[in-house]
């Protein structure tokens, strides 16, 4: 008979080992999936995980892409992780990302075509503010009316997507090209362009912001009372109240930080790699960042590694579509499997599986 035994202390070994094991299992299960699609699994896995960085043919294009794809994931995941630690479940980062992008782009389009050093900083502030504002909706509904932030934040993603479509087709549409949906290309407006800081590296201001956020989050979580209270509220809510934590304030702070960071990510994307407000602007970073946060063990440094890995699957997925005609959805299945295996494996962090002789309990 199989019995589960709760461990006296969570296993440190499995906490670290599980993310790696989850990646291996995902490769195996993904390989089987690719084989069933009639593709050579080894070629497909290599194409997704290794070729973007190591292949002579692809690397010159893919390597800079790695920073471009990973930075928003890391930026969003760092914010989400703080909330997750406090048991505040913001699932709507995608919406906050979109609204942040619209606020940032809105500032840029309002100043167009004026030059000015202050325009880009203003866009940064506006992007963060937009994401923050969008996150305040679930925060206030939760603290005032005790609604569930998972549902509210998730549903607001679809609202944000409709607003994005309305903006791309209406208010923000490029007046010089009325036949096409979408705004002006911000990459062609120098004062608003989030350009590469070092040519051909993919390094832009969003990458810088991501690393600042990682360091900031690390310091908050390990050295500051706010981080201590976040962990306390997540692990033992009654003990948190005993320690003087006001639960409502914590909900607002956690959602606010995550929303602002997601808004920043959206703003850096729309003013740089994305370039313009388009209907198909949102590419699922806000959802993938949830996987990044968990795969990185909600730890800022772990999130950097996980962000690069998931960024890699985006690039590898594009390569797979190009070279092997893999369906685009395959890569989402792949990312989903990663979270699935990780959560399943995490069981053994807290429990030990024992085989015992048959005995009635």
């Amino acid at each position, binding site marked *: 008979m199989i019995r589960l035994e709760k461990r006296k202390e969570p296993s440190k070994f499995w906490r670290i080992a599980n993310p790696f094991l989850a990646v291996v299992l995902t490769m195996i299960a993904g390989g089987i999936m690719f084989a069933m699609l009639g593709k050579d699994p080894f070629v497909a896995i290599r194409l997704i995980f290794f070729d973007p960085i190591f292949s002579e043919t692809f690397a010159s294009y893919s390597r800079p892409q790695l920073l471009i794809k990973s930075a928003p994931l890391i930026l969003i995941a760092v914010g989400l992780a703080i909330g997750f630690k406090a048991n505040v479940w913001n699932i709507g980062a995608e919406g906050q990302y979109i609204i942040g992008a619209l606020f940032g782009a809105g500032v840029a389009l309002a100043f167009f075509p004026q030059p000015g050093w202050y325009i880009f900083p203003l866009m940064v502030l506006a992007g963060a503010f937009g994401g923050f504002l969008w996150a305040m909706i679930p925060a206030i509904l939760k603290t005032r009316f005790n609604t569930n932030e998972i549902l509210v934040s998730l549903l607001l993603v679809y609202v944000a997507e409709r607003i994005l479509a309305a903006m791309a087709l209406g208010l923000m549409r490029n007046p010089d090209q009325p036949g096409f949906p979408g705004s002006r290309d911000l990459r062609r407006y120098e004062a608003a362009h989030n350009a590469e800081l070092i040519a051909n590296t993919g390094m832009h201001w969003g990458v810088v912001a991501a690393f600042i956020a990682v360091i900031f989050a690390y310091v908050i979580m390990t050295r500051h009372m706010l981080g201590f209270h976040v962990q306390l509220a997540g692990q033992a809510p009654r003990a948190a109240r*005993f320690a003087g934590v006001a639960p409502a304030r914590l909900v607002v702070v956690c959602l606010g930080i995550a929303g602002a960071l997601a808004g920043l990510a959206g703003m850096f994307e729309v003013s740089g790699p994305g370039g313009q407000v388009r209907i198909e602007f949102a590419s699922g970073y806000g959802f993938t960042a949830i996987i990044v946060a968990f795969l990185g063990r909600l730890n800022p440094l772990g999130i950097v590694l996980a962000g690069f890995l998931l960024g890699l699957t985006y690039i590898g997925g594009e390569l797979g579509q190009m070279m092997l005609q893999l369906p685009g959805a395959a890569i989402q299945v792949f990312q989903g499997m990663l979270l699935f295996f990780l959560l399943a494996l995490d069981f053994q962090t807290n429990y030990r599986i024992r085989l015992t002789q048959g005995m009635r309990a």
Partner: protein
Amino acid sequence: MRMPLLRLEGLTKAYPGVVANDDVSFEIGTGQIHALLGENGAGKSTLVKMIYGLVKPDKGEMILRGQPFAPGQPSDARRNGVAMVFQHFSLFDAMDVAENVALGMENPPPLRDLARRIRDVSEDYGLPLDPSRLVGELSAGERQRVEIVRCLLQDPKLLIMDEPTSVLTPQEVDILFRTLRKLSSEGTSILYISHKLEEIRALCDEATILRGGHKIATCDPREKSARELAELMVGQVLHPPERPARPMGDVVLSVEKLSLKSNNPFGTSLKDISFTLRAGEVLGIAGVAGNGQDELLLMLSGELRAPSAQVKLKGLPVGHLGPNARRKRGLVSAPEERLGHAAAPDMSLTSNALLSASERKGLASRGFIDWSATESFAQQIIERFDVRTPGTHVLARALSGGNLQKFVIGREIELDPDVIVVNQPTWGVDAAAAATIRQALLDLAGKGAGVLVISQDLDELLEVADSFAALNEGRLSKVRPAKGLTVEEIGLMMGGAHDMHVAHEASA
């Protein structure tokens, strides 16, 4: 000597890392009231779980009425006439008494017959119960009665009772004892688990004492003093706490006519509470569980806010302040629930030291935590209060109940408060640790702090308190000097056997 009903021979049960029972043998006579005495962790629970078929022994055997007895599950035990009343009730609040009884029976009769039998049996044994009342409306004592009547309906030969008096007032205890004696005189054997020595001396014919999984002795408890029994149980000589005479100072804490709604839908709201606490005074507050103790602690710690002027600390209103603001002004507290309320189970002792001490110990400046100062503070608590642990990095949940309690109480005492409020400071704690904790509270009072002890353990309160009050359904009795109070008077302050009369009227 009467014929033995149940003989245990060399029962042994080991869990990973601990031998819960090691070669335990004794006999329970027919109609005998047999006490099983021991501290927490002595192996009492494991032993009765083996008799009741919840746990299978690794070694040894049991002989019931001359036949080998090896129950594979509780229903086997029940079929053989073994019944058990657990310390924690397994009743459904939203169902009535008869339905709850039916749920626990192997072959329940139709509900109407069952209701009549419940009424008959409960009247016969002096435990009146109305079968049609909802369990959610019953007091703790009445709920226990439901469990007992459920057992009696199955006509048991052996009734196991696990710490039955912890939820009863002294008057209710008397009623229970009369019932148990009647059962015994009719030939039912009773295995009575407790660590309350006076009770055992009053009730039991024979006592088996366990310590660390071993049987230490089987004796007649009426021939031993409570002190002798305690020392057998604990294995060392116990010193009653010292109480140096001390002058009472000014009023440090006062609560005036405070009514407060509980934040818990199943909680008890506080009604018109008034008391004062002086510097150097130990005020004991008694009461059966669930009469507003949790709410009183939350209201004093600041987790529940009160109208500002109705709670005064050193003359200044603090009712509106949260826990940290009150700590800063000198009021600290230690809630009953160690794991999850007073301490975070999955955090280290260092983190748990920070939990309530950051303000008073200056462990954080502008929000940034001084971890090395926090760790030495945790180390200081561990040393001063003899917390047995490998170090400050250990998780709170890895500590035994007694050690964690010493840590939690120690943490608050080390904050050098003007007023400390503790709820159930020694609940589930071994005798040696309990003595340490009580002494520490008395020492703190000796240094001029006001100490408020909320407890369900009357012996404890009589040992430490200068003045005494009781909580009953959210109301606080008048505060009286503890000296000269009898157990009967205290019982009346706790509400006597009030629910007894209610049950009579309801069933009439």
